[in-house]
């Protein structure tokens, strides 16, 4: 018995020592010298820009890839791999003059043939990429000469430039595409200032400075993107010095981090427009007075102040975020007035105690649960009886995205609509165009307005910026008057970084931009 226990003890000790030895072999992410660690909310899904749309993927891709056009720090459209472009044939032909001397990370040259290979790949339905609907208006692309590309459209598309800047239209090396095929996702080969090193799933993605970059050489040598799903842990990593930057940061930590002399906090109005869609298939919301009453019943300023600590914009001037291209302030709508709300409900014949089913995607959006409960409280005060139904995100988006049979079961459904193109065409159209009822897209209010449909069409069918703005202004005004939504807030997107990490910023679509970062010692 004694011998058995001794040998058991030795076996256990050996197992633990072996475990410890094996764990030492695993390399980790350390911040040092010209290297930074960025703590993000989740791991990238894929590293092929044409196959992804999530923020964590785009954050990594944005340091490795470039497109014909991009956005600067102020989210203004700027040339990137195209030096210039001209429109002709009423806007149906775009001629691109490409930048010379640009190399992919594998040494291949970026030129018109390389761009065409990528465009053909994006437009080929057989590839099933996420570029199909975004570039549906592109008929084809042809090489005019080594550095000139001609793009022909099926119809004028005023939103196309923004779409091309929207991070899905970033180029992979044709040689890499030919070599890796569908596995290009794991072997990203762009033209950006950083090139891919490795990807340990759920642990880190590492990129290093690309010495052959055509533009200004980055100050950083290496960037490591580290997924940290728990917000408190993300903040802790930053405060402990294990990360140089973290985004997003929870609202409740902002004040404390601002008081930390070693850190600086960054924020920007996000593109998210948090709202409750009012189901106009249901009789109660067919009456505009009821929809307006619901808006008067809820104090959006108080929600911004008390739930978001002031770090949000109330959607009282437009249904969309101020950062969306095409945003216009169309008035001051639905200032908190519960008496007016009761009056409108009474005039519309809504009985006190009328039940309303409110769907909320629990934990999907910043403070979504708290906002939902606050809204329910406000609606109770004006005599309605809201019943909150919470669902996890996958179930929620599956159910709201279903074809109604025959009508959708909710009365109010929460959503925040944010588009990577940062343009009103899809930013408004995705949720208000009458052809975008579920399952096609997310017009969860089942709203139909000829004025809005025509305005959105007009905005799309011209490349004149001023005319587009005017068209979208008409659409926004009509939407605010018709109130197909309970308009709520556009929260800010917040990040924080060590004081010595300069030239980093956060962007409205979500995510942080670190490619121009430098460590100031």
């Amino acid at each position, binding site marked *: 018995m004694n011998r058995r226990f001794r040998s058991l003890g030795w076996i256990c000790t050996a*197992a633990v020592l072996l475990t410890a030895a094996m764990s030492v072999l695993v390399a980790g992410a350390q911040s040092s010298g010209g290297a930074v660690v960025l703590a993000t909310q989740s791991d990238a899904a894929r590293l092929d820009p044409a196959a992804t749309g999530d923020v964590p993927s785009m954050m990594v891709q944005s340091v490795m890839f470039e497109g014909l056009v991009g956005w600067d720090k102020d989210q203004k459209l700027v040339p990137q791999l195209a030096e210039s472009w001209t429109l002709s044939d009423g806007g149906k032909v775009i001629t691109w003059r490409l930048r010379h001397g640009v190399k992919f990370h594998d040494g291949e040259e970026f030129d018109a043939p390389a761009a065409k290979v990528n465009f053909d790949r994006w437009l080929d339905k057989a590839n099933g990429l996420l570029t199909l*609907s975004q570039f549906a208006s592109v008929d084809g692309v042809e090489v005019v000469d080594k550095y000139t590309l001609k793009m022909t459209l099926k119809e004028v598309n005023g939103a196309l430039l923004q779409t091309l800047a929207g991070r899905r239209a970033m180029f992979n090396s044709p040689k890499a595409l030919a070599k890796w095929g569908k596995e290009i996702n794991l072997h990203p080969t762009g033209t950006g200032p950083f090139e891919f090193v490795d990807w340990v*799933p759920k642990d880190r993605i590492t990129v290093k400075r690309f010495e052959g970059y055509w533009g200004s050489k980055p100050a950083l040598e290496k960037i490591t993107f580290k997924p940290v799903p728990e917000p*408190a842990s993300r903040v*802790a990593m930053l405060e402990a010095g294990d990360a140089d930057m973290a985004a997003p940061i929870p609202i409740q930590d902002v004040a404390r981090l601002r008081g930390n002399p070693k850190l600086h906090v960054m924020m920007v109005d996000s593109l998210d427009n948090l709202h409750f869609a009012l189901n106009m298939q249901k009789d109660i919301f067919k009456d505009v007075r009821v929809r307006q009453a619901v808006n008067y019943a809820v104090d959006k300023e108080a929600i911004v102040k008390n739930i978001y600590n002031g770090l949000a914009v109330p959607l009282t001037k437009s249904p969309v975020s101020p950062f969306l291209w095409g945003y216009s302030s169309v008035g001051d709508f639905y200032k908190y007035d519960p008496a007016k709300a009761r009056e409108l409900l009474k005039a519309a014949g809504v009985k006190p105690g009328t039940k309303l089913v409110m769907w909320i995607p629990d934990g999907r959006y910043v403070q979504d649960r708290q906002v939902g409960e606050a809204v329910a409280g406000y609606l109770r005060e004006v005599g309605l009886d809201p019943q909150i139904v919470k669902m996890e995100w996958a179930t929620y*988006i599956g159910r709201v995205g279903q074809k109604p049979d025959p009508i959708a079961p909710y009365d109010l459904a929460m959503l925040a609509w944010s588009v990577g193109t940062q343009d009103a065409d899809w930013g408004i159209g995705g949720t208000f165009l009458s052809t975008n009822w579920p399952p096609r897209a997310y017009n969860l209010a089942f709203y139909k307005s000829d004025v809005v449909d025509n305005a959105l069409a007009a905005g799309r069918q011209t490349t004149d910026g001023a005319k587009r703005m005017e068209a979208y202004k008409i659409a926004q005004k009509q939407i605010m008057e018709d109130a197909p939504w309970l308009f709520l807030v556009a929260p800010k997107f917040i990040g924080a970084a060590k004081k010595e990490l300069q030239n980093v910023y956060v962007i409205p679509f979500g995510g942080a931009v670190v490619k121009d970062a430098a460590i100031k010692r």
Partner: protein
Amino acid sequence: MGRLIGRRLLFLLPVLFGILAAVFVTMRIVPGDPARLVAGPDAGPEELAAIRHQFGLDLPLHVQFGRYLLDVLRGEFGQSLKTQRPVLDEIVPRLWNTALLAVLSTFFAAALGLLAGIVAAARRNSTFDHMTMAVAMLGVSTPSFYLGIVLIVVFAVMLRLFPAGGSGGLIHLILPAVTLGASTLGIVARMTRASMIDVLDEDYIRTARAKGVRERVIVARHALRNALLPVIAVVALQFGFVLAGSVLVETVFSFPGIGWLIVESISMRDFPVVQGSILLVTFVSVLVNLAADLLYGYADPRIKF
């Protein structure tokens, strides 16, 4: 012993099949469109149809299951819908990470728990005994999520002794292992104490004392061996729970383990990863239980297989 191993492995096959069928059907019944979740809300109908076709999600359920079963028998578990990486490439490194964490946390819990339980039993009803059992109860009842955050704040942020999360060597495993092992430590301490007290009241122990054998020798050589038997069983069972229940700790510490992968894959309706993960975790759990039974038999020669 050979018959036991053979029986258990044979029994494993219908268990795995049943688990596979249950997970396969459940994931497809639960609301949520994996194509939409992969593509994002702004994807159009053509893109969604292409994704569904690419992964065979537009085929009848029985055809999908049949194809999947044949692939599994060939050792192919498919590709992740989210990342398009082979499922085994997603799972195996993470399973290994969680196993490392489970071994370390169990060792920490067993070693400290045993020590605390032995001393508490030897000094029954003393202040040390009461304090040890109170701490043990705290370990059992404190939510691991909360404990993890507290350890991060104290030891990573304030004292800077350990990293706040991630992986990268033994140092990254310490705080997660302590968090994960706290509950097991409490159970082992209490179990050891109770078991030691029972054994210390036995006649043969009284005889040893009467013969003048030193108390330290009585505890370490005569009592401990017999008191350990139920503790071994508990530790082996707890190892299985630790392996399966590590998701909260992995999330708090951003530790790339299997628990985090499974939960995230369920949220994303990444069917192949969920199916493969649960299959492998089941396989490992059965092996762990078998190892526990063999260990118990080895420790107690009275047990015959």
